[in-house]
């Protein structure tokens, strides 16, 4: 599913967090969004997923504007997201987290007649667990999962909603180098298996240049550059603004 952003703008007080951003993510693409801290990357995701309303601009999903739609409607249309700080349901086990997500997805969240989980939900949750590789911690409470597994669970919850477009906000945040690569390999496999339009925010340039087919660079809420890894690597503006001081960004 194609995601197209046109002239998106959002200010917080005086700060223009997103300033006239126009970008296209073709159906089935795997793109990275990079940029220094405070560049507006998370805000960009928040605007697409419907957490905030933009001041101006359009978010087009297969050429239909979804700006007026609620979070729920956007989820139903196929926009899924995971969060920079892993966001799951700490008192529930991994399986319960995913069953709850599937239950919500099939519109059964308000059912008081049935028992939880409704029929078929356990199986679908199991598939998602298998897909991301969380089956070994199925019955562990989310609160006591390792940091990496919590990030995975967050992504798994998003996947349980069967998105077409998946936005991952720093899936490797807070991980060591080896763990990062394992995580991003999983993400790439998911993208491949589920034919997703996947956009991820990432600070590790090695990962970005290896994995993403296109890269968008945000800086002070604006698009500084976009292109293939090679184009970005050699872009003078990007080198000046970002790559040159990469060590400060993480």
């Amino acid at each position, binding site marked *: 599913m194609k995601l197209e952003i046109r002239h998106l703008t959002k200010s917080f007080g005086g700060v223009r967090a997103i300033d006239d951003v126009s970008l296209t993510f073709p159906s089935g693409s795997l793109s990275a969004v990079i940029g220094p801290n405070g560049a507006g990357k998370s805000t960009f995701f928040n605007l697409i997923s419907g957490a905030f309303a933009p001041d101006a601009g359009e978010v087009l999903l297969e050429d239909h504007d979804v700006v007026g739609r609620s979070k729920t409607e956007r989820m139903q249309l196929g926009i899924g997201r995971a969060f920079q700080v892993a966001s799951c349901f700490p008192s529930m086990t991994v399986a319960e987290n995913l069953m709850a997500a599937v239950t919500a997805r099939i519109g059964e*969240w308000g059912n008081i007649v049935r028992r939880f989980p409704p029929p078929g939900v356990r199986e679908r949750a199991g598939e998602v667990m298998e897909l991301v590789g969380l089956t070994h911690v199925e019955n562990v409470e989310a609160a006591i999962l390792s940091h990496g597994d919590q990030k995975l669970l967050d992504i798994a919850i998003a996947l349980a909603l069967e998105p077409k477009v998946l936005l991952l906000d720093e899936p490797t945040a807070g991980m060591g180098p080896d763990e990062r690569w394992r995580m991003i390999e999983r993400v790439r496999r998911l993208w491949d298996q589920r034919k997703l339009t996947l956009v991820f925010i990432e600070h590790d340039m090695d990962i970005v240049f290896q994995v993403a087919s296109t890269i968008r660079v945000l800086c002070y809420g604006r698009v500084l550059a976009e292109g293939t890894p090679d184009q970005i690597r050699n872009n003078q503006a990007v080198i000046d603004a970002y790559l040159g001081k990469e060590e400060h960004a993480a």
Partner: protein
Amino acid sequence: MKSNGRSGTRETAIAAVALLIVLVVPFVHRSPAFEDFVIRLSAMALFATSLNLLVGNTGMVSFGHGMFYGLGAYAFALMMQMTELSLPVAAMLAVLFTTLAALCVGAICVRLSTDYFAFITLAFQMLIYSVIISWQSLTGGDQGLRGGLPRREIFGFDLASQLHLYQCCAVVAVLGLLALRHISASPFGQTLRMIRDNESRTGFLGVVLWRARLWAFTIAGGFAGLGGVLAALFVSGAYPELADWPNSGQAIFAVMLGGINSFLGPVLGAAMLLALNDVVARVTEYQGLVLGIVILIFALGLRRGVLDFFRVAWSKDSQ
């Protein structure tokens, strides 16, 4: 928690056995004090457990839950006194009335932030309490509704008989608790736990937060009303204290004492609180002081309700 159809059957079986035991006791040994206790406990258990649907399940702390307990009691007692309706019909209408009242109050409260929610529920309770106090001609004002409830037999039951009242209250309370248990184990109950755990993520999953909260508030109000009906039966009337804030406080105490994360926690808490009240009232006039100290000891000693404490301890042992 591995909830499925099986555990539903198991819960029903446990409830049936518990009910059977309670019903058999008077045939083995009659003790008016014990029967009194069970009658009061059945009202209080419904009251506290319904509150816990909000506090423990959803993370909504209502300070005004007593208003629905009081409304249920008044609605029922008034209907019995002013109409010829049979008792079960009057009880059902009273619960329906309370449920609608909860829907109206909830519609205003549930969109507010946590702090304001607690505050506004308290304000609504004070409003309803003052209406009860000032509407003398209907409610009897601060004297309460007196004159007793008309004795209408239903299916050979005579509610003036303590034994029959005891049986009736036990059955209603167990059925009510089973219904609440079922709701808490339903997909909707799970949704409430999601809201408690992580409200913002729940909103991203397609759950309409205010609607889920409003449902929870309405259901909880209805079951508190049912508790109020039992209370009205016990006192043969209704008193403004039933709808007053110290009564809401009692329910909160029961929930906290027994444990918010165990379904039966509030029932145990209600039993402890009633027993404490009885014992303390016998030995001293400084009831509030003694109760406060006991609750503080529990709160600071266990750091959680009694059942929650044992559950955590048990799961640590078994690891």
